[in-house]
């Protein structure tokens, strides 16, 4: 009897251990990537990720790539000063929440290969500081760092700003060039988290070294080697190489086509119009999803100011020939008369940057005033072709004028009467729809072509001090967009409940009085029936 008893007891213990193992096994099996499913019951599946992201993460898992997402979301201090600031805080909060949720999905899909690190400066100073140092995080804004390491290779990372890169905000200020830029209450138009994160990830992995081609033959004085002469571009080219670009020369003398491996084509200070053939070559490059960065400047020499020519026709832009000047903002708000240095002439241009475009968003939010010299006015060509979108990037304030050449051939720096002052565009971004249709439903559509045209000495050796951010931004952004994934970003259509007091009253009557009373009566009825025999 005792043996049987002991056997039974051991049986029970073993059974319990076995059941625990079964539980663990069940969960483990259900968590295998092949079996794991997320059933999405939301309308239009808003909370799922796109198939291309799923495919990307699956690929990463198979290749055993170590992916890390590092979140630096500093906690806001103090109270918001006004409604706009409060709204920004709210938007930040929402974006942080969305990003964390999105990364949970990435983690879920990526399994072992994806890790998410959420840093909190308050609770874990050391770890946060170490990470900030490693990724060059300065600590002033919400940032997401995407890092990836192929097996056996070094880790590469990309730092993204939550407000600038992962979201599209609606700031109606810059859109209206005639009115002054006011600080209106911003709204969240689109959350671009998935697009940007997946693209950044892909760019870290797919791209080896982006190739930037410098177009030769259109600038008679261009010097890209010298790092000290103010007018040369040595520092810019060296900077590009530091960022990981492979900078090569491109010449259309032999072949009038842009090489297929070009991440972007840079044209610095062209002082001749593009020939029709070359213009077509550049346009074809853009229309096939390529990137083009055009940096025009003003030259006092006669005939050295191309206005766009054939390329301008194809892309729908044109430049003026006269330089643009702008009054230094006068604290006394005088629209004419002497400037601050006693002279009513200014040589530098103070710019307003678009707060919407990814290239300039960060600059706009940093709020540092930009001043550039040697700019010419830029505008959309009348009768510009369709199939592309033009967006202002840089523009002067409202007190700008064109400097007409004086008797000595140099532009007159004196400001004209107030009624002749107006804003001028000096930076333009053009997005070109791809010509070639997609091969089938599985192949991703080729990315749209991107062109950035700026007018002004931004990235020569003297300008790079102040404008390095802008120039490098342009190049980085263009190189990255090459691998942009075709993902629909979530559009926000917030609904609102418009309730009246009678409705709320009725709700109260139903929920607070009616239902509990119903239960009470039902309970008493049951009690009564049971007592009755």
């Amino acid at each position, binding site marked *: *009897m*005792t043996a*049987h*008893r002991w056997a039974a007891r051991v049986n029970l213990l073993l059974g319990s251990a076995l059941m625990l193992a079964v539980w663990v096994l069940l969960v483990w099996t259900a968590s295998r990537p092949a079996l794991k499913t997320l059933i999405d019951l939301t309308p239009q599946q808003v909370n799922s990720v796109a198939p291309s992201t799923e495919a990307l993460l699956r690929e990463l898992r198979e290749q055993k790539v170590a992916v890390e997402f590092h979140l630096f979301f500093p906690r806001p201090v103090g109270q918001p000063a006004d409604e706009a600031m409060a709204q920004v805080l709210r938007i930040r909060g929402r974006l942080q929440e969305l990003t964390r949720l999105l990364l949970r999905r990435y983690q879920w899909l990526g399994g072992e290969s994806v890790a998410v690190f959420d840093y909190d400066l308050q609770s874990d100073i050391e770890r946060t500081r170490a990470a900030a140092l490693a990724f060059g995080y300065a600590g002033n804004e919400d940032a997401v760092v995407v890092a990836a390491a192929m097996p056996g290779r070094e880790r590469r990372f990309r730092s993204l700003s939550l407000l600038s890169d992962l979201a599209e905000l609606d700031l109606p200020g810059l859109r209206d060039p005639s009115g002054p830029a006011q600080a209106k209450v911003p709204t969240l138009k689109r959350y671009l988290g998935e697009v940007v994160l997946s693209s950044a990830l892909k760019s870290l992995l797919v791209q080896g070294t982006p190739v930037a081609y410098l177009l030769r033959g259109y600038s008679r004085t261009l010097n890209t080697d010298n790092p000290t002469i103010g007018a040369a571009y040595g520092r810019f080219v060296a900077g590009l190489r530091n960022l990981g670009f492979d900078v090569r020369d491109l010449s259309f003398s032999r072949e009038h086509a842009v090489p297929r491996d070009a991440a972007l084509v840079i044209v610095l200070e062209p002082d001749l119009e593009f020939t029709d053939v070359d213009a077509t070559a550049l346009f074809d490059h853009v229309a096939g999803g390529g990137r083009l960065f055009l940096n025009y400047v003003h030259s006092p020499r006669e005939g050295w100011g191309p206005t766009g020519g054939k390329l301008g026709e194809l892309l729908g832009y044109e430049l003026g020939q006269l330089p643009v000047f702008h009054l230094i903002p006068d604290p006394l708000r005088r629209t004419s008369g002497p400037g601050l240095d006693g002279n009513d002439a200014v040589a530098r241009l103070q710019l307003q940057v678009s707060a919407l475009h990814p290239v300039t968003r960060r600059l706009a939010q940093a709020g540092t005033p930009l001043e550039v010299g040697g700019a010419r006015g830029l505008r959309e060509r009348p009768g510009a072709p369709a199939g592309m979108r033009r967006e202002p990037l840089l523009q002067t304030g409202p007190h700008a004028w064109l400097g007409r050449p004086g008797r000595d051939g140099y532009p007159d720096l004196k400001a004209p009467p107030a009624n002749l002052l107006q804003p001028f565009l000096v930076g333009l971004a053009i997005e070109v729809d791809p010509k070639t249709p997609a091969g089938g439903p599985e192949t991703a559509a080729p990315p749209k072509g991107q062109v950035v045209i700026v007018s002004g000495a931004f990235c020569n050796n003297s300008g790079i001090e102040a404008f390095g951010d802008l120039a490098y931004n342009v190049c980085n952004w263009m190189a990255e967009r090459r691998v942009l994934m075709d993902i629909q970003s979530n559009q926000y259509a917030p609904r609102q409940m418009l309730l009246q007091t009678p409705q709320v009253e009725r709700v109260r009557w139903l929920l607070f009085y009616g239902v509990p009373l119903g239960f009470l009566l039902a309970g008493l009825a049951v009690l009564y029936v*049971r*007592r009755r*025999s």
Partner: protein
Amino acid sequence: MIRVFALTKRFGQTLAVDRLGFEVARGEVVGFLGPNGAGKTTTIRVLTGYHPATSGQATVDGFDVERQSLAARQRIGYLPENVPIYPELRVVEFLRYRAALKGVPPRQRTAAVERAMQKADVGEVARKLVGHVSRGFRQRVGLADALVANPPILILDEPTSGLDPNQRRRIKQVVRELAAEHTILFSSHILAEVQDVSTRILVIHRGTLRADGVPERLVAEAVGRRLCVAARCSQDALLALVREVAGTAAVPEPAPEGLGACSAVLQPGQDPTGALGERLLAAGIAVRELRLVAPTLEQYFAHITEGSDRAEELAAAGGAEVA
């Protein structure tokens, strides 16, 4: 039907049942007798599958109560000592539930419950909540529960405890009626009931079986029968005569003037009444009283449970010490 072999049950250090062995044949009504704490309930709980035995074996209708527990339980209708119930159910609901639990097919459940209620005579409280019925009815509800699946064996643990004499009488009546169709093992510490109803008794004391058999025969074969004599002669003459015939010393008894009375404890099986009567007749002594007094079941019970085997102690219950 029920076979118990060397059953031992230990609770920690306490030995509740010690190598118990007995049998209950089909159709018998066996009374399980013993003082409180003797081990009756424990034995019953082992049989019904509530407790496992420490060692030994028990089978019910051929099924081992531990290894073939489900089959064994299926064959037993059990009325526990404290009649546990579910107070929030009506009597009918309770019985229906128990019938379902015991495997009575759905179609036959109503009829089975009716039958059980009729046998146990609880029809009048059928729709009352079990928690609201009186003690007596509760006991009978428990009995109905034991009967509801019409099991071949009924095990009733103290079925009359806490009842008034009328209620007890009724329960005994029911048990007698049930005896026709079921094998019954019931326990009690009230000897009169056991004697009334059972065909056989088992006496258990301190975990061991002290007696097993038909009550009359048990008592008859036990020590302690007394011979009581009263005759018209002197005390001493009587004493001497008894000593001579019975072979044991007699104890004088108080007697009215002119009579002599005494009593003597006899050996088992010894019956000197015939011889003594003849002697007295031959001596011409008028006999007033000449009888054998068998001990009552109480005395028998006390004897075997107290563990005392001295005839003198029994005799002292009726009179003076024997010299």
